């Protein structure tokens, strides 16, 4: 087991280097000289000179790369080009709100989607099944933007059930008051695609031979679905949910922006709007690392959940 983990970490290194190179190429080379980019946004020439010196733009390329790597390893990307706030501080403070949104969301959406998928599998092939699938398709074809605009307008602005925007101090206040409508919106958006996917996973299992054996034993359909099939379908479901988590951090950016929730997603959008490269670079690199670690975790979890798989 330990050997496996070490080997996986070792295999991650080229990928990490690749990500660093990609980000470096994108921002230091394609992105161009900050003097040019920030010309219209920062008027203080000394500030710009400072930034250029920090990045070592007058030095050869490999020195610039070395500076970048150092930044990554020491968690110090300097300060935001627009607000001057240290990037590390930005990252650490924005993580909390994002997680407050994402963890309850993930739990709820997974549980609800699984329950619905099993229910739909129960009536597979029937008219209900087809109608539900078409409704899902239609629901998925409406842009998330529309969901946000309409829900925000309807439930927050018009009906006043939730705050239109904002974030508070206390955890409970944030969770139940400010995060409530965003979570509801993201739930509404995610149910259709998750239901479709989980339904596929469940139906793949239902077609397997062991289900026929279970019926030959005289088990009821509901026991077959909820015990036998679910336990098998849980494997691809868990894999999917786990590997999707890092992406969710960013995926919530629209909601964060609309509701002015100070999370990582919103930070990214602001950074892109303001061409605030250090912030974008830092977030990209660290999220990529998190994704790789999550993939490793997912594989380990997979081993625990599927007795057929042996660590290699």
């Amino acid at each position, binding site marked *: 087991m330990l050997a496996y983990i070490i080997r996986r970490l070792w295999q991650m290194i080229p990928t990490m280097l*690749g990500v660093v190179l990609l980000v470096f190429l994108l921002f230091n080379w394609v992105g161009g000289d900050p003097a040019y980019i920030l010309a219209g946004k920062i008027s203080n020439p000394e500030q710009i000179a400072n930034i250029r010196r920090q990045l070592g733009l007058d030095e050869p390329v490999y020195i610039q790369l070395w500076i970048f790597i150092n930044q990554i390893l020491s968690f110090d990307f300097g300060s935001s080009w627009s607000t001057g706030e240290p990037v590390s501080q930005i990252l650490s403070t924005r993580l909390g709100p994002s997680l407050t949104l994402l963890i309850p969301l993930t739990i709820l959406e997974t549980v609800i989607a699984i329950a619905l998928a099993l229910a739909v599998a129960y009536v597979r092939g029937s008219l209900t099944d087809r109608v539900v699938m078409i409704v899902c398709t*239609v629901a998925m074809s409406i*842009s998330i933007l529309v969901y946000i605009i309409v829900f925000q307008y309807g439930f927050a602005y018009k009906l006043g059930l939730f705050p239109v925007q904002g974030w508070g101090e206390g955890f409970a206040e944030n969770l139940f008051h400010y995060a409530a409508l965003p979570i509801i919106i993201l739930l509404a958006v995610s149910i259709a695609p998750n239901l479709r996917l989980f339904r596929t996973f469940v139906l793949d299992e239902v077609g397997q031979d062991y289900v026929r054996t279970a019926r030959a034993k005289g088990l009821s359909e509901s026991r077959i679905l909820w015990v036998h099939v679910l336990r098998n379908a849980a494997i691809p479901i868990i894999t999917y949910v786990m590997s999707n988590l890092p992406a969710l951090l960013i995926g919530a950016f629209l909601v964060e922006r609309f509701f002015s929730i100070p999370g990582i997603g919103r930070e990214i959008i602001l950074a892109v709007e303001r061409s605030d490269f250090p912030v974008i670079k830092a977030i990209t690199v660290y999220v990529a690392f998190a994704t790789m670690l999550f993939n490793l975790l997912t594989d380990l979890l997979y081993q625990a959940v599927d007795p057929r798989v042996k660590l290699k």
Partner: protein
Amino acid sequence: MSMATLSSQHSPGLWTLAWRRLRVDRVAMLSLAVVLLFLLTLVLSATELIAADWEVEVGVNYAPPSFVGAQSASERGMTEAPATTAETPPENPYDPLKDVIRQLRAEMANSAAPSVTNDYGIPDPLEKELTEIRSNQSTTSVSLEKQETLPLGADKWGHDIIKKTIKGAETSIIVGLVSALLATVLGTLFGALSGYFGGWIDDCFNWFYSIFTSIPYLLLILAVAAVLQQKGVTTIILILGLTGWTGVFRLIRAEYMKHKEREYVLAADAIGASHWRKMFVHIFPNVSHVALVQMSILVVGFIKSEVILSFLGFGVPVGVVSWGSMLNEAQNELILGKWWQLTAATVAMAVLVTAFSLFTDALRDALDPKLK
């Protein structure tokens, strides 16, 4: 040992069989019809046969749809920027200057008619030409009179929503189709090479794959958008296409790895087929339907991504219409109670994407039917 009827010379291949299955599926045919309708609109719009003049402000600001009825003057007046005519306040009988004011007002009302003499009492030598120009202006401004209602309403500046929606469709479909094509071609090529040859070629492509997939897709798009300063449809297509190949890659690679071990490929090897021949003459026709379905799925995804990008302002430049920019405007309009742009963009997008998705599902089932 009996054989199928020997009458027909040519028996149906995969695509013919799939088409036969599709033809019977009513939902599939309906979705296909809708998609084709959109494509037709696209062609007409791109060749400027329709909606070319979307920029002309043919309606009054925020003109509502015809079926709702025109806004009252007060509704409109409330929403217009500087008032074109100031309403005259009521006269104050106790004002000592009321006579002077009355005279001034009368003069102002007459100022619509241009004064024949200038301030110095000398007749204007260019007076005839000026009168002519002014009369021309008034006739043209009469024909440009803005309509009170339009079939689907107007936006803040009076643009016809129908035309904007059509233009938005043009943008979205072009972006969706071309980027999907680009991503599919890249993914298929890389996947084929990687899956077939294995070894260091596979390691190399996998390295790229893991880099691109470690960064969440949206983040990657935003990062690239941040860096590429110039906006445009080509830029979006490049961004989406060059980052979206990973899903296709993984699938096609898996297919190639599977087929490489199949006996018909071993048989091809045994009779002396070259690598190139095995990859593209033998295996590819068995894998092309997977690539096609993936491309179809990508089109839907890219349309949705383009809308979001344009909404945020990272997508199309200012002069180009996108459903995303329409939704952006709609956000503010909604608070003022104007819902028509939001509805038009949403419904158009929903219809296209639903039709495309349903057709994709039907296509997948027709190409690879399993007894459900």
